[in-house]
């Protein structure tokens, strides 16, 4: 089986995987990082969103081998164990931005990507447009949108987005 190595939440990891092993399977089943969820397995719902080299991606639609050498951040990597929550996580708690919680890791990882691309001051329209790839079946999104706006404000200032050139 091919070997794969990458950095996950700041830690170098390696594993033997089949070529068809998805990144989300590698994270959940090999590394036991089960905070990243699989909702639809068809790149629609966004429960599996992680950051690959700082950019949000649906880990159900990436092969682990495509991430050879990459830096992966999952929901587990946002805060220290037993330490304070990341400002975005805290905002979801403060604003009741979840009910069952299944979509929440993906929502938060996508929210951070919105801040990366659009900065710390986010209006409701931008947040709703940018949540196109994340589905929540409980909340009606209202408190998720509120949480993302609040979390973005409380985060350190985002660096400006970069273009292809």
């Amino acid at each position: 089986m091919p070997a794969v190595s990458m950095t996950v939440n700041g830690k170098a990891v390696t594993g033997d995987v089949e070529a068809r092993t998805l990144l989300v399977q590698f994270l959940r089943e090999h590394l036991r990082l089960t905070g990243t969820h699989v909702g639809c397995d068809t790149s629609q719902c966004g429960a599996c969103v992680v950051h690959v080299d700082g950019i949000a991606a649906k880990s159900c639609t990436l092969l682990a081998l495509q991430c050879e050498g990459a830096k992966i951040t999952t929901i587990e990597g946002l805060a220290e164990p037993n330490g304070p929550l990341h400002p975005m996580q805290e905002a979801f708690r403060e604003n009741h931005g979840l009910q069952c919680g299944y979509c929440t890791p993906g929502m938060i990882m996508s929210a951070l990507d919105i801040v990366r691309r659009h900065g710390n001051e986010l209006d409701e329209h931008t947040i709703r447009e940018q949540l196109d790839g994340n589905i929540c079946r409980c909340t009606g999104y209202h408190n998720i949108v509120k949480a993302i706006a609040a979390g973005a404000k409380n985060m350190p200032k985002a660096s400006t987005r970069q273009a292809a050139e």
Partner: protein
Amino acid sequence: MYNFTFHRPTTVRQAAGLLARNPEAKLLAGGHSLIPVMKQRLAQPSALIDLSLVEGLTGVEQKGRSIVIGAMTRHADAAISPVLQQALPGLAAVPAAVGDPQVRNRGTIGGSVANNDPNADYPAAVLGLGATIITNKRRIAADDFFTGMFSTALEDGEIIVKISFPIAKKAAYEKFKHPASGFALVGVFVSKRGADIRVAVTGAGSNGVFRVKSFEEALKKRFAAKSLEGMTIPATGMNSDIHASAEYRAHLVGVLARRALAKATA
């Protein structure tokens, strides 16, 4: 998903060599069309050749009167490219309209064009601007490239390297987005570059992207939404499925063409 072997070449030449040695191989770009169809076992390549480490396949640049986009340029990067927004904003709107943000973070222009999904956005822009597809072997005009649903003029071992779009003075894209999939139920790209007027439609035709010659003729007098007032196209040859009937799609072609023209001439 059936298993396969996985390769990561670093040059186009290596990738072409791998393709030649693995006749059942597929090229992997962003993977957001290919991996889903492999999961459904609708595709079962013996090998995947990942192009993400191949040098020189990304970026947007202006070369004379053309915009050249590298095949592995991701939608998210193309959409915010200052060069593209400045020279051809109508084209920048196309990658911005693809899928959702995470899909745009991975999906590439080369992958989209090579796959020629009948509901994909980029084929409308490629045909609607009369772009040139540049491969490791030759240059292919858009009018000769798209040969039917999921079918292109690409030959075995041929790899898209970049796509060159002539800078049209007026160009715009309008799309009726399927709310769940993000694909174009119908999308219309219009452009005017001197006497070359193009109206290209994705999502509607059962044979993939196509040009609407009757609209193009009507626009020769005046490139404006008004010139198409009351004009429709026949429903024959339109897709019909649970999302929309052939008649509805044909109707949308007229509506979206007029909206695109309004945008292009604003």
